[in-house]
């Protein structure tokens, strides 16, 4: 069983900060304190409270949580296979798949932020890790931004795509989940879902969410291109086997 660690085991210390839509006053500090008590925290200390606009005040609070988590009992899927280099991945595909894997990526819906998909696909890659375009054994199609789900599915069919990467950076009002869901549903309607390795990516993406959405894998913040490449390669090997 675990709890947050401040400076002593099981002290349960957390820091919170938030804004309340009221002018600052001592009463506002007390409102902040009581709110955190209501959240279930103990030893609540409002260490900072101040006005950030005429009708808004900001608070920094330290408190202890009585909650614990049974870490041993958690079962969280992880798609990150063991670390492989570009050469290892190319060699694996060449040997076990025997042909280039066709990968298409796109920022779907109205999202124009290609920073994520570009980091994975562009030759240059991300943090010194080359993008999929650089791999000998991937044939990549970067479809760019604001690609309609219908167009992406049509393209997948026409080009016989093996692995599809959908990216969503804008997450406002759940637009990412809506678009990801639309893609899965359309692939299913076209009986293409089982033909592709389907991956999604974005700053808020987790493996758990991806699984819930019906994707094979989800890649979040800080993902390296080689991690995506390794996942696609090993999944493809399983398919061929």
């Amino acid at each position, binding site marked *: 069983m675990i709890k947050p660690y401040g400076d002593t085991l099981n002290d349960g210390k957390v820091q919170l900060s*938030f*804004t309340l839509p009221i002018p600052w006053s001592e009463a506002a500090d007390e409102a902040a304190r009581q709110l955190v008590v209501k959240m279930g925290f103990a030893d609540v200390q409002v260490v900072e409270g101040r006005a950030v606009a005429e009708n808004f005040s900001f608070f920094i609070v330290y408190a202890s949580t009585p909650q614990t988590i049974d870490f041993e009992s958690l079962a969280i899927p992880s798609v990150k296979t063991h670390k492989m280099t570009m050469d290892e991945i190319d060699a694996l595909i060449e040997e076990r798949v025997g042909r280039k894997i066709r990968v298409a990526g796109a920022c779907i819906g*109205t999202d*124009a932020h290609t*920073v994520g998909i570009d980091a994975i696909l562009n030759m240059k890659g991300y943090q010194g890790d080359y993008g999929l375009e650089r791999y000998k054994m991937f044939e990549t199609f970067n479809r760019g931004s604001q690609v309609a789900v219908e167009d992406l599915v049509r393209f997948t069919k026409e080009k016989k795509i093996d692995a599809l990467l959908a990216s969503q950076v804008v997450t406002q009002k759940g637009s990412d989940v809506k678009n990801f869901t639309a893609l899965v549903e359309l692939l299913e309607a076209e009986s293409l879902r089982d033909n592709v390795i389907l991956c999604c990516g974005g700053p808020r993406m987790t493996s758990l969410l991806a699984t819930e959405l019906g994707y094979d894998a989800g890649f979040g*913040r800080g993902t390296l291109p080689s991690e995506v490449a390794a996942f696609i390669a090993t999944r493809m090997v399983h398919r061929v086997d």
Partner: protein
Amino acid sequence: MELQIDRKAVTRCRKSAAAIADPVQAFIERHSTVSVERSVLRLLGVDGVDADGAPVPNAIVESLEAGELARGVAVTFGRALVKTGLEPNALGERIASGALKLAEFRDVPKDTARDAVTGHARKALERLRTSRDERHELLQRFPQLPPPLLYMIVATGNIYEDRTAAVAAAEAGAQIIAVIRSTGQSLLDFVPYGPTTEGFGGTYATQANFAIMRAALDEVSRRLGRYVMLTNYASGLCMPEIAAMAALERLDMLLNDSMYGILFRDINMKRTFVDQHFSRKLNAASGIIINTGEDNYLTTADAVEQAPAVLASQFINEELAHRAGMPDRQIGLGDAYEIDPNLEDGFLLEVAQAQLARQIFPNSPLKYMPPTKHMTGDIFKGHLVDAMFNLTSVMTGQTIHLCGILTEAIHTPFLGDRALSLENARYIMKTARHFGEDIVPKPGGRIEARANDVLSECEILLERVAARGLMQAIEAGTFADVKRSPDGGRGFEGVFARGTDYWNPFEEMLS
């Protein structure tokens, strides 16, 4: 602080930029676009939407046959004004509803039609000048705090929520408010209508939304005793129309780049060049400061490698803006603090780039953009990187300072996030206010050497582009590793060659 830079190289860069602009300008003068024509109608007073929700200016321009369009919409519309005796807006509605057809009025003589339009055009320019004078007067009465001017973004999707956020940001120290547009608006070939409460990643730019925000900021300006500026985006497929609407509603700044749409939104290059020119003519007349988009080179590729391309783009933007009649004081050239924070001496490279721009463009209200690419969910580190950005800005005398926000990579900023960001900027800029004035960079040191390297690489790049032609250089992928063909991309179908009797009253009056 003053770097010893190769002044002759700067002169040669400007010469290359002029050589680059010459053929582009010649092309611009022989062409117009549907968006230019729609902005003519908007300035004449045409507004509103038809029964299907399509803007009236779009409906009118679409109703013209190709031969008529080549003359420009003004004369054809003027004929109908003469014959019907209606005001432009009422006439527009009748045409959009199908009650009247422009083809019915061909017998009205050209000169009579021109006179009718010129009267309305004069009134429009009068309105532009009034709003410019009004801004001038408000700035006298409610002076801004000294630059860097703190620029804050709001983007809830709902203009009324944006208003709350903008007023709170102004109270917390923001001097400029930008309303981010809904993602995808740059690709719409029309401007949405009316107040809007739904958007993704931002709020639609509409004339009604402009007016709502302007009124709120005027109110807060009076209350705080300092003028709070308003910014929106004249980029994408409707550059001149947004410029027209912004001028009418007294926006103070517009994002407006000569190449951004081509490279980063795959908008046709001919469309963009023609549109940027007319939009900048309007901006020049209405006193609006443009912000160019060089920061985009740095977010899509390596910031250290792209530094010469940023400078080259600044030279090109400056030259094309001059050709639209914009004075230096209205040309806010862009740059950004995007070097990987893990790079040793990255801060020195940032200082070199920012100071280089300051010295080369001394009268430009430089627009400095915050780190975004290397911001992560680690808000504590993000706040520190923003502090280094703030320091660079104040020590190199940047003018328009887009405040970095610690939750940049996480969500559309919370109200409290903006307040923390503004506190960060205000603290750094106060504690280091005159730091830049008091330090002398080591002659031949790392900062000066980097600045000269960037300048000399920029010179080579500009020479190459000049030799090849700008359109061909873009086609070959010279900028941001992106390749675009002259007839490809969005909006090409909206570009047309001007007939010999083409007429745009505003172009004539603003020359």
